[in-house]
């Protein structure tokens, strides 16, 4: 389900904006995955507009 959710995010910038701001319902995604999505998007939003590599270090 995570993969499908990420694909839908990648295809829809409005969904992506909602997810980045933490205002998107994420059905079918586990709480741990939800947290990881939010953290990853937050780091990306702080650094650059488009996706970039996020290191966990």
């Amino acid at each position: 389900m995570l993969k499908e959710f990420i694909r839908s995010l990648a295809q829809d910038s409005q969904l992506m904006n909602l997810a980045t701001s933490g205002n998107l319902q994420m059905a079918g995604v586990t709480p741990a995955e939800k947290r990881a999505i939010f953290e990853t998007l937050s780091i990306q939003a702080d650094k650059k507009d488009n996706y970039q590599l996020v290191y966990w270090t």
Partner: protein
Amino acid sequence: MEDCVPKIEFEMREMVKRHFTVDSLIQYAYLFLMDRLKEQLPFGRLTVLHYRMFGGEGAAVYRAAAAVEFLILATDIFDDLQDQDAPKQAWSEAPLPIALHLAAAFLTLSQQAMMDSEFDSSHVQTTMKMMNLQLLQAANGQMMDLMNVVSDEQSYFQSIKQKSAALIVHACMTGVMLTGRGWHPIVAEYAVEVGMAAQIKNDIRDLLRWDEKNDFLQRKKTLLTLYMLEDAVDQHNWIRDYFEGRLNEADVADKRGLLEEAYEKSGAMLYGSVVMRTHYNRFMELLESVPEVAVHKEMLLSILAKE
């Protein structure tokens, strides 16, 4: 924790001096050790830190950490020779028979270092049994990698769990078990989680370079290339064509920019980062649940940050 790199290095040099008697063997061993020292011996430091966290005292642990590093060095040499993707390493520049011989000798030296250590023989025996079992797991994962038999996410995760995570488990658990404790399931679990996160991080990094380590050019199935191969978007069909042999390397030589764009627009990079972070967060949760480890969290993280 003390700066244990010089102490582990000393033990590694002592083992070479004691057991290698042929000049050329000694010279190559030191040459390869110098290369390895650039990375600050993170696996040996994991062993020392876990030994200290679980109450171990004294200097005997440095010999055990040297054993761990010899084993890791041997597996790295074999891996680089098999993949032929690290041309600047000392062992890649050495004649192949010499490099192979050194890797085999380091494996034996690893075993000898453990047997020469001053720990209780029953602790050494149970630790060595664990070390061999983890190494055998890594051998299984390496074979999956060499044969490129990863076909889906399940086999990908199985492969990296065996190939990469087992070596981190081995380093951490050596420190734990030499204190006289048995197998620690939570340490094992967090070592697996951080090992998987590190391997996914490497896979993301290797995808962005355009040389012999690039998994796309090598048609290697990783979390991200699998994601792309499942992508239904027509404009990415050339990626599938390359993986399935309908296009060759010359056909895609000028497509680096397109590939990077595809990884980003499809969500592959985001997916890889999220999965990586899920494993890393689980690692952090587990780490916090072990009181002996939680208080030394920063030290553990500082070693892993250099992985």
